[in-house]
């Protein structure tokens, strides 16, 4: 009976257009933020920070970026790994060439560089659609892989082609502690995520969705496909680029191009689709799922084995892990093709009507 909107009347369109029109949702969202910012830092261990929280947060941001493109504008992309890389290497170059810049400024600027590149690689989308476009974006991916390795100035002529992030600090205070890393990533993710949410519920977001749902009709009612698609590519690449820069600076600290290879692209796509196309919340859920599930399986299986008195080798664990993971993906799609976010919504609907079935 808790989850009721009865008695909540919208006095203004502003209220009606809020992100969380329903009071309970607002409350839950607030609670989550409070937990994320104030509670977690007191309970999280270094392991949960470095292995779970930080990657989840950063990849959520990347997933949001990809979702803008795939979920809202309907342009499938497999180049997101490369765009993370662009963000990372752009930030790195700014940091080494303009040492007076604060690393986090570099992170943001890295995002803008990624956006620019994103627009360039978005141009084919004006002509190519669906899976053809998906494969075409792989051109961006592989070109990225190559450029990061081959073009010397990108890696500042380091012999091996692996580079290091500058020490992280802000106004003189050192931000290399896991807690600081986590909070910084979280701030980036929340602020930019909110921005993305605002865009997708505004008129530009509607243009993207119009293109996604029926591009011809959209054009006939005055949506410029070029503007809509390229703006989507730009925003998406910006978010992904910032995520990439954070991944490099905050999470890895020192990295080789393989950190942004095709596997990353696929990982992000899994997150978006598992989480739910066209849902900001879904992106986060997807990231949580994709990051946590393997770790969870990997840690949970051996003890389970012990329980049934069967010593499971590391190899078996990882094979089972990949099997269960695959099975889960299929299972989720069968239960709810539109991802965790939709599952969440249906859950809420049920809760709304509870205890009455209809």
């Amino acid at each position, binding site marked *: 009976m808790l989850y009721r909107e009865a008695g909540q009347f919208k006095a203004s369109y502003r209220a009606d257009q809020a992100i969380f029109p329903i009071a309970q949702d607002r409350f839950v969202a607030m609670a989550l933020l409070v937990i994320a910012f104030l509670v977690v830092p007191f309970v999280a261990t270094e392991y949960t920070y470095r292995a779970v929280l930080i990657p989840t947060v950063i990849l959520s941001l990347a997933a949001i970026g990809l979702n803008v493109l795939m979920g809202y504008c309907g342009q499938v992309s497999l180049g997101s790994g490369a765009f993370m890389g662009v963000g990372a290497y752009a930030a790195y170059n700014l940091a080494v060439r303009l040492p007076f810049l604060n690393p986090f400024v570099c992170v943001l600027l890295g995002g803008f560089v990624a956006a620019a590149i994103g627009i360039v690689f978005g141009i084919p989308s004006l002509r190519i659609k669906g899976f053809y476009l998906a494969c075409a974006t792989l051109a961006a991916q592989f070109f990225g892989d190559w450029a990061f390795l081959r073009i010397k100035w990108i890696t500042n002529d380091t012999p091996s082609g692996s580079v290091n992030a500058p020490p992280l600090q802000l106004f003189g205070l050192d931000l290399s502690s896991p807690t600081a890393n986590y909070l910084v990533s979280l701030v980036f993710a929340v602020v930019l995520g909110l921005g993305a949410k605002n865009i997708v519920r505004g008129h530009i977001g509607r243009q993207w969705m119009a293109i996604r749902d029926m591009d011809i009709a959209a054009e006939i009612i005055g949506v410029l496909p070029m503007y809509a698609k390229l703006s989507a590519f730009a925003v998406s690449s910006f978010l992904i680029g910032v995520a990439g820069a954070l991944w490099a600076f905050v999470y890895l600290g020192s990295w080789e191009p393989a950190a942004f290879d095709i596997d990353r692209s696929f990982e992000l796509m899994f997150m978006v689709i598992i989480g739910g196309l066209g849902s900001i919340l879904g992106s986060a859920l997807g990231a949580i799922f994709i990051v946590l599930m393997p770790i969870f399986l990997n840690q949970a299986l051996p003890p389970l084995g012990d329980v049934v008195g069967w010593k499971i080798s590391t190899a078996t664990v990882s094979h089972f892990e990949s099997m269960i993971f695959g099975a889960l993906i299929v299972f989720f799609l*069968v239960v709810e*093709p539109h991802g965790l976010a939709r599952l969440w919504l249906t859950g809420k609907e049920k809760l709304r009507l509870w205890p009455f079935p209809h």
Partner: protein
Amino acid sequence: MGFFLEVLIGGLLAGVLYSLVALGFVLIFKASGVFNFAQGAMVLAAALALVRALDVMEQWHWPFTLALAGAFAFAAVVMAIVAWAAERLVLRKLVNQEGIILFMATIGVTFFIEGLAQSVFGADVYPLNIGLPKDPLFILESVFDGGILVNELDIWAAVIAGLLVTGLALFFQRTRIGRALRAVADDHAAAQSVGIPLDQIWFIVWLVAGLVALVAGAVWGSKLGVQFSLSLLALKALPVLILGGFTSVPGAIIGGLIIGAGEKLAEVFLGPSMGGGIEIWFAYVVALLFLLVRPQGLFGERIIERV
């Protein structure tokens, strides 16, 4: 000149090897509109099943040909099981979902197959010898000094690919099932309404794709040894697909030839000046530029926009 020809021929032959992988994608996309991400994993699974069975049967001291036949039979059965499971446990439950959902499902299938295949057949590297000759050949030695080098294995691969394609063509044109497949490809609903059982068709398509994967696995396996990397060949097949069109069997071959020749020539003649290693993205860029001219690929069905 001689060297140029050599690179060209080498490229063309390499392209055929990509086509072998690409074919599997085409078959399934053509008949069920599913972009089967799992094709690479199927190649791996088929090859692993083949090589492991072969080892076992040779330990039983079966005559080679018999062992080979047995191994192929075994691998074929494995692929049949994969196809059956894919249809029964995945596709059937996701009928009438958008392409992207089915695509995602096949990604799940990929993880599952990779995990299963490795845990059952092992994650090691297994040399595979199915009696394909592997020695280098030198042709036209009279014309060019040193002659032009080709590899017997590649030639055999080309021959096999040729047979495979003609076989598939006949299968699609001549047999009842084949025609049914084409009907389904054209219009699911219509096909169902005239009483073509979709689930059977899908099973058959996946089976055929599985067998194609088996052939690809056998050829690539005897080239590289059977190991996990086989599942990564899918990435080499994608530009071929884009170029040839997702729905065209000949397209897969022609696309393969173009990509193969293109990337090898680029790598050998442009590569050194650019620091090398350009062929992967070059293949994709070629495909991409090509798409800009013909968005539906070489032989892909034309997209006509209406309102």
